[in-house]
């Protein structure tokens, strides 16, 4: 073995050249977009290059941060991996219990099965991740049912355990999410995502818009889960504080491209790209 490579054998995800275009695309799309042109809209055909050539790997128990402002493509990358969007190009290999899945070569039924059984997703907006017409407990039950847990008592017990774990009072299990505060809704969403103990969890701006104290509690919860379950996570955020607290490694995106990546302390203390330097310098 060359000894500058790591010795880990527990890679969870390998993403190569993930790209996502909106529009028909043309020969000039990649030459006229990106950070050096300050746009992700192709000057020639008007297509939007939401993400282009995004590559990274992720190991068990690792938290990878994807940082960038709105429109940088950071959410697009994660949504493609969770099958919310269909990528235009690229590959992603998910390794789970010694089996490998080529995510973008699977049919939609297989993709849904994998997302239901092995992935978790927490959106910025709880309306995206929760069904607001059914109770908090019902939301968790829904996820367990999709995963073929169908014993009523077992579902009830698991939902109670999860809500207690995320510090939502189990007594409020039968209430509708709309009765909850934003922070509570986010906790229910996290409970739902965790219901099946997924080895891979996507977190898309999960603390954005919450009160600082609520943010702190959610971030603590995420770290505890990482520690207890060894869950691999991708955390998408524009918040440097979240990146500093959660992520071991970080990708910085702008106009659909990864402009730099590295160990989080290196990205924050020795940023290489002009844009990252500006971001870090403008942090409060």
């Amino acid at each position, binding site marked *: 073995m060359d000894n500058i490579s790591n*010795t880990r054998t527990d890679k969870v995800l390998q993403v190569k050249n993930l790209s996502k275009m909106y529009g028909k695309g043309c020969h000039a799309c990649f030459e006229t977009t990106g950070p050096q042109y300050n746009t992700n809209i192709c000057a020639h055909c008007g297509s939007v290059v939401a993400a282009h050539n995004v590559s990274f790997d992720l190991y068990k128990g690792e938290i990878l941060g994807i940082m960038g402002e709105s429109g940088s493509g950071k959410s697009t990358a994660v949504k493609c991996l969770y099958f919310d969007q269909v990528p235009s190009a690229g590959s992603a290999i998910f390794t789970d219990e010694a089996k490998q899945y080529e995510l973008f070569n699977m049919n939609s039924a297989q993709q849904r099965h994998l997302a239901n059984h092995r992935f978790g997703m927490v959106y910025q907006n709880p309306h995206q991740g929760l069904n607001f017409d059914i109770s908090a407990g019902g939301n968790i039950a829904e996820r367990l049912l999709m995963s073929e847990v169908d014993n009523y008592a077992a579902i009830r017990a698991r939902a109670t355990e999860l809500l207690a774990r995320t510090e939502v009072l189990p007594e409020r299990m039968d209430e509708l999410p709309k009765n909850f505060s934003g922070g509570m809704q986010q906790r229910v969403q996290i409970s739902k995502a965790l219901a099946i103990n997924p080895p891979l969890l996507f977190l898309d701006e999960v603390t954005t818009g919450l009160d600082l104290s609520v943010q702190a509690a959610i971030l603590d919860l995420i770290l505890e889960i990482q520690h207890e379950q060894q869950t691999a996570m991708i955390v998408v955020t524009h918040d440097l504080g979240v990146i500093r607290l959660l992520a071991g*490694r970080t990708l910085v995106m702008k106009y659909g491209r990864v402009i730099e990546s590295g*160990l989080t302390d*290196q990205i924050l203390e020795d940023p290489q790209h002009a844009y990252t330097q500006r971001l870090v310098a403008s942090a409060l």
Partner: protein
Amino acid sequence: MVNTSNKRPILRVKNYSKYFTLHEQGKIIPSSHAVNLEVYPGQLTALTGPTGSGKSTVLKGIYRTYLPSSGHLYFRTRENQEIDLTLADEHRILELRRNDIGFVTQFLHALPRQITEDVVAQPLIQQGMKKTPAVNIAREILAAMNLPEDLWGISPATFSGGEKQRVNLARGLVSRPRLLLLDEPTASLDPDTTEIVIRLIEDLKHEGVAMLAIFHHPEVVKRMADSVVQLKPPTTSKIKLKETA
């Protein structure tokens, strides 16, 4: 005075340079220039030199908090192989940080809201130790550093400088790294605590830990260092060379 008898260096720094390119200001700021040094197991190498000579930069470069501009950082692994840290992949660096290379700075960077004994136990837990034995070891080292026991169960956020520094050191020492980078570890300590810390560092040396250290006080250097490397601030002519290189 370097004793190299039958020991090979754990770290060889060869022509290490680091300069910062600040895009916004259109400037290149030199920090370390052509640094050469060696660190041996069971010995302490002290970095000295005026402010701006790039002492901390060398330590951060070894730890990969800074990316190197040029040069090599050869590190001898447990398997007795030399690897160039400047080329090692990020996960490899993370493995080395977990098991082999420790860093104690002047400032405590801990997770907010985490209680002191957990802060200190964290490196052991990351190495795979269970929480209870890890916390027990953390308590032993906190006791050894004379940190009052009633502080162990609260977050170090409100501690005094000297208390924070002891927590910081305890965390850096607890995982028994093979190479310890120390950036002014006694800077904000009173004489009694400084003495405790110095004795701890001496104990580690006897256990074979290699250390590369920056000390504020020349008398500490004189007392602790097995070898001294004096750095000079990079000069402008050298920067110009780097710019065109």
